[in-house]
């Protein structure tokens, strides 16, 4: 197989794996936040802020992985 094909394959697999990771992370985060909001509805505003920050951090890691995958294809 052409080495370029391997690069595409690696990028595809890499993106898929990072998306799985981010999906699990954000899913768990949202579940926990919703549960907490259900128990204590008055803390919803505070929870939302904290949830968005954590989501951004989780997403950041996944996006870094995706950028590297993009670089595999471009370079």
């Amino acid at each position, binding site marked *: 197989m*052409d080495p*370029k*094909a391997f690069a595409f394959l690696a990028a595809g697999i890499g993106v898929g794996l990072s998306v799985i990771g981010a999906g699990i992370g954000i899913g768990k985060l949202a579940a926990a936040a919703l549960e907490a909001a259900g128990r204590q509805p008055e803390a919803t505003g505070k929870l939302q*802020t904290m949830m*968005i*920050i954590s989501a*951004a*951090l989780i*997403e*950041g890691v996944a*996006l*870094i992985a*995706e*950028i590297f995958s993009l670089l595999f294809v471009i370079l």
Partner: protein
Amino acid sequence: MANTTNLDNTQLQQNHQINEHATHSTDTTAHSDNQAHAEEGNVMIKILSEHLLDHNSYDFYGVFHFDLPIIFYDNGFHFYANKKAMEAEGTFKEIHHEFVKADTGNPPQLNLSITSLVMFQWIAMLLLFFGFWTAAKKYKKNPEKAPSGLQNLIETLAIYVRDEIVRPNVTSESLANRLTPYFISLFFFILTMNLMGLIPGGHSPTGNLAVTAGLAITAYFVINGSSILHQGFGHWIKEFTGGAPWGIWFIMIPIEILSMFTKPFALTVRLFANMTAGHAVILSLVGLIFLLQTLVVVPIVTGFTLFIYSLELLVAFIQAYVFTMLTAVFVGLAQGHGEHSTEHH
């Protein structure tokens, strides 16, 4: 693309063998078909790069087009009105989309050209300047009147940034008051740049690593500078130990120094990737119509594009919020650690 071409070729050869009457002409037509396919792929990549990358000219869907000035620093400044003027002058030339010196083939020491993304940043600055100026004029005219229109929009967002982002995170009140203008400008600047990419013919400068890196570098100086100014240089150095016992300093100090640089790096990549990803998804979806060349996919693609577009609108706000929020959190952390450790000692 290369794979499909190979596949077409093998099919073609099989057809050739089966159909002995296959003439030379069919072969050539098939070949040109392949070429057309490859060219379409290139056109898609060209459109993608036109929307996502930086250029020395601005093109509004072929309706109008203008060149932007090129400025180089190479042992003295070189100014050119556009690319043609640069090539006519002869000191520099363009090879493979890169500007190099005609005699040595090296790139210029500094490329300070006013590119399309710089232009869009300036447009964002002008929009913000006039927006805030009109709002400020209204406050001066009748300070007692309830805000309305643009003034209302700006006041709502500015107060949100102050009360929900800066004050809860930057615990010291005097520092929070001093940094609020920075955070408000940061939020509005990023938001305007994000939204610009969603207007037809617009580009979002935040979809470029250089722009987001610039924003993150200023954030880096604000985070460390505010810590040094507010708590003193000695305290800032002490931060690196993280308030841990001296036995684990050899782990703590490298980690703290590393985290000082990973914070702005994460800010850079997050904003860049979020903005680029949205544009790339929309353009790939639209590109499907032209690659598959059927009208069947149009309603599906339009629906998906509309969905992604509204998602983009949401992301534009969220990313401006997240960038500002995280900078505020980091400023707060740079303060908080110190206060915490002084309380204990």
